[in-house]
């Protein structure tokens, strides 16, 4: 099972956090910090797996991560998941984001955090992997966007920002 999915940048700023087990807000923030601390001090070219931090279950859990340009994608999983499988999943996630945002960059994740959540929801649900087929995921996301578009014009008349 996937316990948590975290995205943060090279400075440890969280860009997405999704916990599939309940922690209180403080603990969640501590976990993000601890995970960043563990992951960021590792060299490039070392392996993508390490034991989880103390807060998130210690040695019973693994952190599986990938580092893309300015962002770390970290999945915290238990022993029932295949390590390489999760690495593939991260890759699928990133490729999907890339397709949906056209050359995704950190800013897209900042300004569209709701979209990122929606895309992630098509892949992982309650800590279990729902879908790994990128085309299927994108089809779902496209369908959502269409629905959104069809509803958007209603907003136009009432739009009053801030």
């Amino acid at each position, binding site marked *: 099972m996937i316990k948590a999915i975290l995205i943060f940048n090279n400075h440890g700023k*969280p*860009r997405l956090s999704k916990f599939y087990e309940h922690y209180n807000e403080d603990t969640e923030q501590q976990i993000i910090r601890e995970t960043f601390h563990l992951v960021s001090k590792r060299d490039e070219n070392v392996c993508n797996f390490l034991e989880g931090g103390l807060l998130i279950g210690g040695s019973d859990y693994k952190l599986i991560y990938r580092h893309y340009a300015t962002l770390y994608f970290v999945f915290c999983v238990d022993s029932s998941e295949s390590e*390489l499988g999760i690495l593939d999943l991260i890759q699928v996630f990133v490729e999907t984001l890339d397709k949906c945002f056209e050359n995704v960059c950190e800013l897209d994740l900042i*300004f569209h955090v709701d979209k990122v959540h929606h895309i992630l929801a098509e892949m992982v649900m309650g800590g279990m*992997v729902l*879908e790994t087929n990128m085309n299927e995921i994108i089809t779902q996301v496209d369908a959502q966007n269409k629905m959104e578009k069809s509803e958007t014009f209603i907003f136009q008349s009432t739009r009053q920002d801030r």
Partner: protein
Amino acid sequence: MPAVSKGDGMRGLAVFISDIRNCKSKEAEVKRINKELANIRSKFKGDKALDGYSKKKYVCKLLFIFLLGHDIDFGHMEAVNLLSSNKYTEKQIGYLFISVLVNSNSELIRLINNAIKNDLASRNPTFMNLALHCIANVGSREMAEAFASDIPRILVAGDTMDSVKQSAALCLLRLNRTSPDLVPMGEWTARVVHLLNDQHLGVVTAATSLITTLAQKSPDDFKTSVSLAVARLSRIVTSASIDLQDYTYYFVAAPWLSVKLLRLLQCYPPPEDASLRSRLTECLETILNKAQEPPKSKKVQHSNAKNAVLFEAIALIIHHDSEPNLLVRACNQLGQFLQHRETNLRYLALESMCTLASSEFSHEAVKTHIETVISALKTERDVSVRQRAVDLLYAMCDRSNSKQIVAEMLSYLETADYSIREEIVLKVAILAEKYAVDYTWYVDTILNLIRIAGDYVSEEVWYRVIQIVINRDDVQGYAAKTVFEALQAPACHENLVKVGGYILGEFGNLIAGDPRSSPLVQFNLLHSKFHLCSVPTRALLLSAYIKFINLFPEVKGTIQDVLRSDSQLRNADVELQQRAVEYLRLSCIASTDILATVLEEMPPFPERESSILAKLKKKKGSSKLPDMDDSRKNVNGNTEHAEDAEVASKVPSHTFTDNLNVNSAPSSGASLLVDVFSDFSSAAPTESSDEHFPRFVCKNNGVIYENQLLQIGLKSEYRQNLGRMYVFYGNKTSTQFQSFSTSVSSNDVLCSQLNVQEKPVDPLIEAGAQVQQILNIECVSDFSDTPVLNIQFRYGGTLQNIAVKLPVMLNKFFQPTEMMSQDFFQRWKQLGAPQQEVQKIFKAKNQMDTDVTKAKVNSEALGQCEHLGPSVTDLSYSINMQSDFSFMILLLLWCFYESSQLTSLCSVAFTPPALRFRCSSVGRCGS
């Protein structure tokens, strides 16, 4: 067209985020956020109804603020309102907010559940998916209660869309994980298995995950999945990706599904059916063969996916542990990976080999890679990989290579990362003990451990070396000599001083013949370390000194001088001072014979599992440690479990205080002493016989009465409507009690409700003696009074009269009954009459914790917490109790917050009116 066009976002949100990003300092950021929170709060509270778009925008802002690590304490209601919107976008953002921010205890759960219910019934697949996602992500018990029976129906219904089926399968899996008792097994289980044949691979994947979890819990119900899984796997592995839709990932056919199927098969032994078995073997061989083929792509994703399947296949082969041919091939494959340039593969190969090492077929094959693993330990740049190498060395160790492996681990320890040093120390200690042929090697190894990594040597490790030295007389002389030499190093670790002090104190005489290690030299050496050590070590050294006085009468004077010095006799530490005083006194007054008896050599320790092993297991979690005892010969033949080791680890520390602390009783008596003390402290002398009474509401044993003459203890047991009470009368004086007699009296009403029959008691109680009396009790009907025990005896010519209320209460005869919530509430409603209900509201003194309260109520033998009632309060559950004579008590404990103070409301409904008393005491336990 990109799926998300960048321009159509919410401008207000974008501006807010930009503002935050432009903040120069943390303070400015907090200020901006607080401003925004105030703004949103006023918008939510304002008179003007917000349109869906605004709500969505504000909820998005809240999400962003939450991500930055700020608490969000409002907006939940608005999010819940969004759930019932008909607009997809609003509903979606509402669900998002809830799955990120709402925890399972929220009071809003009922409202959320309502929205989910509507969406599940909507037959709109998008809405259904949103609802299922929400259930899976929150996964609370309330949700499980509300939907656990609906979801299987959605999952197996013929007309359900594929995407909904996928979600339903995982949703069910999640609920099964969080509240397994609420997910009913039923005819749907058979149909779930057939989802393995589904056309849509996404559905198959989700179903495989679900079945794997269910099969782990009840393998028999899902046996049929094995043949279906093998068939599916075979089609994926052997076919040239025809029916795989888009599930081919970088030229690998459906890797994720293959991995999941292989995991599912690991829940079962190898198939018994010969054709099925050969088909599976064929699959596994094909996967192994593919690993040798040239890659179809240079991309790392291709090899990753291929190897994910390969590693899982190897895991299955290891799990089956039945085909020597496959096992050896697997081992060779992993051997190749050990030297692969991809760090990930080296890591995983080391990890898989660990499990392979415990198979008897492949243990030898694994051992051939020892040099590679050792070089991994020395040269890997990545601590994660080195850690796996340590694990593997530990797993592959046996008698033939133990010396090499222990030596390598020791030398690695000098440079190892601090984070894994303690674990390596434990492993070395275990291996050294387990494979020690001669124990001199063992002693050397442990002393080396202390020398190299003294700070990481835990108590268990040095306790153990002492246990072993004491139990084996062939190594005692050597140990004394070695520690003596080790102590001569200018700087040595405190742990070494401890071991040295203990061993020389016991066996220093074995090396005293050599003038270089004469008694005085030994003593001076130990004492030169004294001032550098912590208090516990100094205490140990003092004990070693008194043992020296016994071993070597010639140094008695020197040691007495030391003990007599102000720094000892007037030491600020109580323990040290006491030892110094007592040892000094002992050495002065006791004859040689008495000294020899008191300070005799330690008796051998009972053989038990190494406490170090227990510690390692605790540290690593049992799953990760290959269980060496299963597959290989165990030198000590120890098979006790880890729990016992808790005791084992206490043994040595106990003996230090017991056997070396000469003033205390022998160790067997120590527990007795403690008991007596605890009784004293809990039973302060008092004349009132009622004072101890309330304590027996929840307890059955203890002291009920005590004065200067007499102590009365009780031990009672109850079964159904019968009880037996053992009364112990203890004479505390030095004179005998005469004409001792007792009688139990009940008032008229109680006589008909409760029978108490007393067995005769001896009329004489000798000084300091204790006599026992048995009372048999039968509960005829409900009662509220208490019987009184009257005692009469003569003490020194005067007649003594004592009356003690016997703690026999109705709750002693309670029996818990479990029932479903529906039954509970049905019965609850039937008990409507005013005299049938008592309600009490009281302030909780402590924080309410569901589990703790449950345990408390249960421990009172009141009944079984069975049901979490559907209630808007924070915590509500019910207990129902049934006594033997057919009446029922229903109890409902609510907790709610009132003006920020926690208050509990306790309601009890019952049939007989006698329970007023119980109600109030339940209230106390709840607080």
